[in-house]
């Protein structure tokens, strides 16, 4: 019983560690985004389909 609980605790611990690492990766990805990416150039008179 003790051995089974110990294995379960190890698995739970590794899952929690995995989630923490994943969250760090997610928030790291968010931080890498530039808020003004692809800001539109509102002064353009002729609207270009592929204009940034």
């Amino acid at each position, binding site marked *: 019983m003790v051995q089974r609980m110990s294995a379960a605790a190890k698995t739970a611990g590794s899952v929690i560690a995995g989630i923490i690492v994943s969250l760090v990766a997610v928030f790291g990805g968010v931080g890498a985004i530039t808020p003004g990416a692809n800001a539109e150039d509102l002064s353009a008179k002729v*609207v270009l389909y*592929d204009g940034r």
Partner: protein
Amino acid sequence: MDRGLWLSRLRRREVLADRVPLVLATIQALVILGPVLGPGVAVSYDMAWSPDPRWTPFVTGVDTPAPRAVPSDAVAVLVGQVVGAGLAQSLILGGVLVALGTGTAALAGEIGGVIGPLARCTAVVAGVWNPFVYERLMVGQWTIIAGLALLPWALLQVVRLARGNGSARSLAGLTVAAGLGGANTLIMVLSAVVPSLIVLAVGRRWATVRPALLTTVVVGAGMAAVWALPALAADADPSAGASATAFVPQADSRLGVLGSIVSGGGLWNVAAHPQARMLLVNAGAAAVLALLGVVCVMSMPLGNARRALVAALGVPTTVVLLSITPALEPLWMTLVLGPPGGGILRDSHKFLGPWVIISSAGTGLIAHAVSSRGWRAAAGLLTPLLLTLPVALTTYLAWGGLGRLSAVEVPADYRAAMAELSAHAHGDVGLLPWSQYRRYPWNEGRVSLTLAPRMMSRIVLFDDSLPLRSGTVSGESVRAAEVSQRIAEGDSPVEALRLVGVDTIVLERTAAGLAVEDDVRRAGSLLISTENVLVVRLAPPALEGARELWSVRVGWTATLLTALVVGGLSAVETLRQSRAKAPA
């Protein structure tokens, strides 16, 4: 443990495995669409979604030589007339994303056998959180994402056929669904399915595969009739030659064009490229994950299905590679410009669909492999990482592309003007400014197609050319080209439109463009003048432009008949099966 209890637990686990991906796919669709689901409609690039669903000549394909928005716009109008335009848009976009996620999970399950909920969820996430979905969604090409969403379901049927238990009826139904999305959706599915069925047929499975192959081709042709017949019947525009190279994939990362497409990105329109992809670690990780996913799928014990999947992946991917190889440019130009209908290949990036789907299903299978090998500690760490990595690499997709997409209210005066013009049948309408793209101030300056042709039940003559940074790509309308020519030669836009036979001018006043308001006001009697629209009736009434309608009528008839026959037969078969299963 009691055997009954054990079976009951196993059954519950299976039900959970089936439902969890659907719940996750729904949640992530809500997270991605976010502001798009608000009041109003989202209008961005090619997604000019009318807030008032109306059967306009543009929607039915009557007003253009090569209709591109049929029958997808008709589907949007049909749903919109039942539930309202905004809800229709939310349901269609949400449905597409949910189908994409659950389909990728179902394909992973079909390939990998019994895989757990975590592995299925990983496939759900990987199928949706990728640059392909982001770049197409940002330019409003929801029918391409619909094609991507149908691909896993179609490939699933192909794998089943290879194993001797697939169904021609299911493939016919999927082909009808693809046909409802229009030319791009249909070609995305058929370009993967047909080669795989041919490979299976050649490999001594002819008797099993023949019905599916024939059915798919015939149903595909029937569903294509609505846009193919009018396009083939129209005069080809020889000046469109310059456009063949304008639509090949472009690098959206530091990995170059090849690395960009391997990692799922590389759309030709650089305005859609996410800045985060310029981080080498971002695109690099996505490329490694995609490659591992494809390798994982192809290393599974698939039997005949492997050859089918290689064909489904290989043929479309070859089209992409052909388009980006400089040495093969003459061949690419010949393919796109030579045969009738070759133009459908022009935007070759869409053929990346099978790569995205198979690599995403493979990501789920990697998660399954990690969790089922007994590496408990590693599995605990790696499977959540695999589950969240696609999200981490594509966070810019969340919440409408971090605000790039959101629903807006189209101004009431604009909608009233379009309704007024629709109610009074006259001749053709000339639309100014003479360009089809707008930055409506009420749409936060986003680039979009003009809404007018989709909102006004009149033939609308507008400039259908495509203004790009590299130059202008010609449209297909001969009348529009004549107007552009006259303007280039010095005529005013109003005079040029009058000379080709329009009797009403609509000026979208707040759209950035040529300052022609004084010309329009002087041209005839003022019908409507509001903050956003100026409408003038030209006098005397002008000539009506000649139009050929037989190809549109025949095309619609063929497509509707195909959909009705396949739908009817499917309904009858479903009814027969449910009766057979019912207890006596």
